[in-house]
């Protein structure tokens, strides 16, 4: 079975019904794509297939043959997409486990809608984050899409409220 992941070809010998997620993680060995629920509920396993967002835990590896798969490792060579830069600048991740999926979902959104509204973000970003990073995910998308200035957003986070000094 031949897979095209992040522009590289992988020849693997696995059961056709193995979920794409586990082929990517355990056979190809790219572990940035995460297992969270196995039933397409949480989004931690999100990848792109031919430019479309896909929850890889719930499709078989055989259905990915001949398709172009992009995982979190394939977003950029040097963590340099606008979204990745915004994620770093705003300290979006907490534990980080869901963030591969969040970034894949956000990447797919910006591809479809380069200037998403809050309502667009609401409907596109359905990934679960137990740490609760949603507010920064939203702001990260606004910054990456050029709709908010990084410094304006950072000011809110870096100087919350009126602090008293000792």
């Amino acid at each position, binding site marked *: 079975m031949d897979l095209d992941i992040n522009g590289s070809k992988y020849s693997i010998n696995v059961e056709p019904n193995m979920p794409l997620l586990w082929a990517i993680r355990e056979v190809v060995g790219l572990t940035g794509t995460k297992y969270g629920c196995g039933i397409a509920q949480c989004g931690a396993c999100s990848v792109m297939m031919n430019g479309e967002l896909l929850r890889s835990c719930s499709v078989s590896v055989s259905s990915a043959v001949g398709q172009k798969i992009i995982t979190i490792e394939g977003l950029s060579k040097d963590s340099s997409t606008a979204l990745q830069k915004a994620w770093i600048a705003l300290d979006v991740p907490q534990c980080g486990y869901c963030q591969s999926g969040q970034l894949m979902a956000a990447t797919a959104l910006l591809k479809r809608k380069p200037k998403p509204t809050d309502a667009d973000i609401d409907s596109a970003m*359905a990934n679960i984050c137990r740490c609760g990073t949603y507010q920064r995910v939203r702001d990260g998308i606004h910054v990456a899409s050029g709709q908010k200035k990084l410094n304006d957003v950072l000011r809110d986070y870096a100087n919350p409220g009126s602090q008293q000094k000792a």
Partner: protein
Amino acid sequence: MNLNRRNFIISSASAAGGFALGMTGAFDVRAQSQDIALPLKTTNEVNLWVVVKPDETCVIRMVRSEMGQGTRTGLLQLVAEELECDWNKIAFETPTAGQNLARKRAWGEMHTGGSRGIRISQDYVRKGGVAARMMLMQAAANQWGVPVSELKVDKGIITHVSTGRKISYGKVATEAAKLTPPDPKSITLKNPRDWKIAGTSVRRVDTLDKINGSKVFAIDLKLPNMLCAAIKSCPVFGGKLNSYDESKIASMRGVKGVVKVNDFAVAVVADTWWRAKTALDNLPIDWDLGVNTKVSSSSISQYLKEGLSAEGDFWQRKEGDASEAIKKANKKVEAVYSSPFLAHSTMEPMNCTVRFGKDKVEAWVPTQSAENALAALSEASGLPLGSCEVYVSDIGGGLGRRGSLHDFVHQATAIAKQFPNTPVKLIWTREEDFTHDFYRPISMAKMSAGIDENGNLTAMHIRVSGQSINAYLTPMVIKNNKDTRQLQGFWEQPGDAQLGYSFPNLLTEYVMRNTHVPVGPWRGVNTNQNGIYMECFIEECARAAGKDSLAFRRTLMSKHPKHLGVLDAVAEKGDWGKPLPAGRHRGIAQFMGYASYSAATAEVSVSPNGEVKVHRMVFALNSGHYVNPSQVKAQIEGSVVMALSAIFNEDITIENGRVKETNYDNYPLLKLKETPKVECVLVPSYDFWGGVGEPTICVVGPAVLNAIYAATGKPCRNLPLRKHGYTIV
């Protein structure tokens, strides 16, 4: 200057108080720590906390686990501040539990929970930073033959003021490491007003690998010849494994074996995890479901209800005569509240990798407590602590699940024991995670109060009936049959989780009603439920008295200026009393936990069919000090999400003795579209050190519930709200 370096660090560490180790039973890491020789130190280890490399990198050590809460960045800021190094040239490392043990626990206890990561270690790690700076400067002074008082340092460059000579930390580290550490009495910490790195919103030091897929969580670990295991425990708590038929799966691709893990669980081991899990799904298993198969949520509910009126000696605080005062009161207010079992559901499922060597057993563990994991590994393997080692990875969510019981370490060890010299990675399915958690305990509260003819509250009677965490995890800490932990937040003593109100008459009671369902700490622990009981009931009392919610609270808080301080701060920032757009309503709440004071306001609107929109949440926090305001705010943002998720959505129910909810489709968590914008105001008073991750969750629920009450005129007393007519949108 007589003290040797180790004594200096141990004495400063032990001053912070030792945390009880080996919660699984008779294990105590300390008991075995005497016979193990110190490993050789590297020549540029200035002290336990600071290593300076020749290329000027300052490696700062910390021993707390990082699960997203930002403790690592905060501790590095504190050490770097006192060290006067260049923040752009720092790196970090974490000694293992085995290394700590081998050096006689020189780094102190390693537990990360109870929002203690920074507040418990800040004193000794800052002193470690000062001591390292003093030694580095002394080494420079010795080299130049000048008194150290003539030197100054900035960003790791030492300057002799009068001559302008300069030398960097990296050039003197090896000599500094040979010096006698300074007398602890000569160590002075900076005043926080002089901080330049600590107290500022520097970016986290651990973000990059989380945004490009390169971070290796424990679940991602790859080792040569590694096998993977999937596990199933008896679906009914307390039931047992009778038998299984491994012949049915023996020929399945990749399967290496079936292991009886213990009396309650069976695992399949295969070359990949998906194959192990698929084979396990096909394994015929016969369970002895045991005696609990008739227990259900409704039977548990009846049991707790009975506790609300049971006769007995349940009191914990008795000030005046609350029962009599309520009887005589002009107006009597009474309400019964309830909250369900909840699951942790960390995004990274439970997992652990173990390699069982001939004389050594190693484990790779996502744990909040490296030393508890080491104790579990030793207990499960039967090998002495000195033959065990635990490597802690950063954790994909802790929330209390990975701190005390290390069930997954015990299981992985039992499995790996059957495959000598082969690493075995155990991963739980999400279904196993939901059905074999230890849950936030279920409870109910009967709240009663008396109000006089002037609208003053004269008496308060709180009776909580519910399950005890201590009874399940740490029964030895329950003294005189009074389990004070379940009344967290109602305590009289200051400093940790003190009730912020003074009532002329007060009676608090806890009626222990344990079930067969395992329970444990869940972010914020009992402040979650107790904060809701108190703050929603105070709201009912305020309305019964015809008083403004804020003013009514304030009259009861004159003896609690810090509680009052955050309440006033949030009222101001949250525009309390100011007009709102049509259809919007406000709620307010304050509570204390983990040595910090929290208050919140919420603005909501409620549609006729119960759709609740939370438009705005404002938060005030006095955590005494703070180290990184952006990360403090991140914890508040996270607390808002987790608390809203809990009050609207989350519910673990029991049917036929087992947990009914198995995955996110029937245990829905809050999502981005339902998340309000969070504003906050930090009001540190700089006279104590409080926690952040947990004390920020307990006021979110009651502030929102009180806002819904304001919108609908009806109090919300039973959770989750989605089962009582409300959905969050």
